[in-house]
């Protein structure tokens, strides 16, 4: 039992939780997102992924707390309390769901890796939208020791954000 205890309590006494990449692509800093709501971290801290594949999977085990009717953004509340928002592209609310398909409904429980959305990269880009996908921790204030891993290519479910959970 002591071993599992130790595993959970490395670095500074808190439990570390990982948020996994919901989409394959290039992980970059939020500074590179051309929208002040994201690059000024108004909605919270996080990273952005420039997608190379049109699939969004759940980044944690939890509940799908928001599935917009327009399917361009989702939020998952992790079992550990973290609120993760994934916003696929900028201003893509204007597409009203065109080019997006959803596979889960708001309120459903999800496991990390389960398919949430598919989107048509080419179609959406052709319409002139930037598909950069911010992945934001909405309740950032609860996680003062957040680490974001950017500047590398990620596959689905590679760790991108580490949180210290003190619960």
């Amino acid at each position, binding site marked *: 039992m002591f071993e599992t205890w130790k595993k959970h309590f490395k670095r500074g006494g808190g439990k570390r939780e990982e948020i996994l990449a919901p989409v394959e692509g290039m992980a970059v800093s939020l500074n590179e997102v051309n929208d002040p*709501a994201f690059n000024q971290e108004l909605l*919270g801290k996080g990273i952005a992924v420039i997608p190379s594949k049109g699939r969004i999977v759940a980044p944690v085990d939890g509940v799908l707390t*928001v599935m917009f009717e327009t399917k361009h*953004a989702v939020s998952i509340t992790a079992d550990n309390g973290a609120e993760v928002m994934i*916003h696929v592209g900028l201003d893509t*609310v204007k597409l009203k769901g065109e080019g997006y398909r959803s596979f889960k409904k708001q309120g459903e429980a999800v496991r990390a890796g389960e398919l949430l959305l598919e989107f048509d990269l080419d179609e959406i880009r052709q319409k002139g939208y930037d598909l950069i996908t911010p992945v934001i921790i909405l*309740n950032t204030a609860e996680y003062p020791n957040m680490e974001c891993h950017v500047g590398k290519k990620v596959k689905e479910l590679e760790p991108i954000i580490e949180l210290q959970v003190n619960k």
Partner: protein
Amino acid sequence: MKEYRYEIEDPMGLHARPASMIFMEAGKYSCSIEACWELQKADCKSLLAIMGLGARKGDVIVFRFEGEDEEAAYYAIRSVLDKK
């Protein structure tokens, strides 16, 4: 307690941008600010809660303010909502 009834005009409903504007303004006040729609209530200090309402164009949301600075919060949220 103060109340403000607001009919959503944005054709896309309360999506991320309008929800985040309400959330950011709400965070500046100490009073409680709730958005009530149908049988749901959302704490406006949680962006997730506001977005989770799923309110659409034409829906009427009642904002309820309760606490010391409710008057100031009421006018601030009104000005955010009426800006568009």
